[in-house]
């Protein structure tokens, strides 16, 4: 597993993909931070200590939705296209080690992406602006778990195709669907909505962004990742009984 993890990290940083994604993320979230901060400071009457971060966390979540599929699209699709995956299958590695190695590599990049954004609250300290650190920490836990779930979904999609572009597009669409399915109760109807609600990835984020950690939300997001990773292992194993040449 460590072998695969190290190889994927080398790939991320030598192909510049990780740098590009991290830079884009910091660029856009930085702009949002500036914009949100101006709004809170200039319009007055709002809760800068907590409200500002609710805005900011929701914006960051949205950018993760668009950028994280780019991190996972390569992981299996490219190896399938190159033919290197079959070579990896001749080494004494379990399929689950290959999947986890790749997943953890993308998690490392996610952490490297989130870490510098801690600069935003840090910037406020010299200005003696109030920052509620507890709720902010909860928000970051939620952001990380949500990102990890996005990555697990992306890995599964990547293991099903040879095309990176397709992998990114489908991952984005699937995640978007998980978000939007509970948007409109008139479209789906109240009874269906109550069934869909527990599966909405994004509804799970609201408690976190308000500064709370609900164990049900944590369990859901962790399970979401585990289920998608297990499906990926199954997808790789399908070569045993399916006609893949």
């Amino acid at each position: 597993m460590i072998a695969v993890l190290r190889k994927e990290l080398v790939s991320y940083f030598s192909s510049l993909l990780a740098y590009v994604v991290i830079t884009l993320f910091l660029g856009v979230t930085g702009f949002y931070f500036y914009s949100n901060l101006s709004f809170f400071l200039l319009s007055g009457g709002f809760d800068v200590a907590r409200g500002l971060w609710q805005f900011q966390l929701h914006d960051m979540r949205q950018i993760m939705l668009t950028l994280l599929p780019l991190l996972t699209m390569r992981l299996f699709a490219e190896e399938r296209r190159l033919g290197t995956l079959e070579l990896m299958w001749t080494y004494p590695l379990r399929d689950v080690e290959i999947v986890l190695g790749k997943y953890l590599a993308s998690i490392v990049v996610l952490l490297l992406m989130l870490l510098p954004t801690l600069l935003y609250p840090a910037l406020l300290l010299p200005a003696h602006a109030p920052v509620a650190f507890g709720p902010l920490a909860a928000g970051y836990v939620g952001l990380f778990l949500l990102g990890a779930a996005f990555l697990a979904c992306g890995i599964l999609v990547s293991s099903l195709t040879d095309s990176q572009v397709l992998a990114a597009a489908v991952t984005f669409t699937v995640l978007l669907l998980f978000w939007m399915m509970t948007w409109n109760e008139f479209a789906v109807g109240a009874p269906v909505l109550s069934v869909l609600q527990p599966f909405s990835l994004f509804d799970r984020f609201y408690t976190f962004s308000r500064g709370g950690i609900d164990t049900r939300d944590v369990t859901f997001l962790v399970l979401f990742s585990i289920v998608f990773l297990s499906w990926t292992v199954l997808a790789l194993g399908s070569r045993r009984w399916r006609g893949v040449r």
Partner: protein
Amino acid sequence: MIEVAHLTKEFGDFTAVEDVSFTVAPGECVGFLGPNGAGKTTTMRVIAGIFPPTRGAVRVAGHDVQREPRAARRLVGYFPENAPFYPEMSVEGYLAFVARAKRLARGAQRGEIERVLRACGLGDVRRRLVGKLSKGYRQRVGIAQALLGDPQVLVLDEATSGLDPEQVTGIRELVKSLRGQRTIVFSSHILSEVSQVAQRVVIINRGRVVAEDSPEGLARRIEGAVRVWLRAEGPAREVRDTIASVPGVRDLEDGDGRWRFHARDESTVRDVSRAVTARGFLILELTRESLSLEEIFLRLVRVEEPRERAEKSDAA
């Protein structure tokens, strides 16, 4: 060392390999010969542990590739056709990954990488990116990853295809140098290559083993594999009868002003030449060509098929 017993591999409703059986003794070097699509690669992939057989069993040093996949894979170094590679990794970085993936002891990794870099002549390009190397070098990187960890069994699929003659010789010499110490299965569609390197040849066609023999035995079987074109000055009928009267001449045909026939061997060609000249006809052109591998297959398949049919009718 390698036991392939009644191996059948199906992909959907396509049968790539059907009831293939053979064994390879420790230290033996076996050549796998067959036209494209014959089932060589599928058989080798099963030995390398990429996917299990649909029916039958493959064992490497007693380890079933299906039941003990990792134990079997540890013993096998595999070179896949076309040598897939990670373009963005350096040669050294890639081999370091393979050393870890093959679970070599940490202390032994460095030394093993140095050893295969030397064995494959990659010392000069060790820091270059694999994607920037020429095809010949990339092929050697592929061989290097197979050799890494000094596995007891080497499975090399078309290891010399697409290389220039010098590189081909280099890889052949490398394989020859491992003969006796390691068990080797390698595939090729070049007859001369297989007969130079292998101690035994398994010929496979349409997913079945059609012949299994030593290179010498194989050469004997395909005797008469000389096709001759002859143009002579003289009355057509008489020339024709003269050629046809020589023993060892078969399939005589009129081909666009030239006579075309199959000769049993070189001495038959001489006999024909002598007979034609003795009748006072002048030979204007005499060309001969060895049969291509495809044609040899066809002949072997044709020889094998009646026997098979006989067996089937016996069974019925």
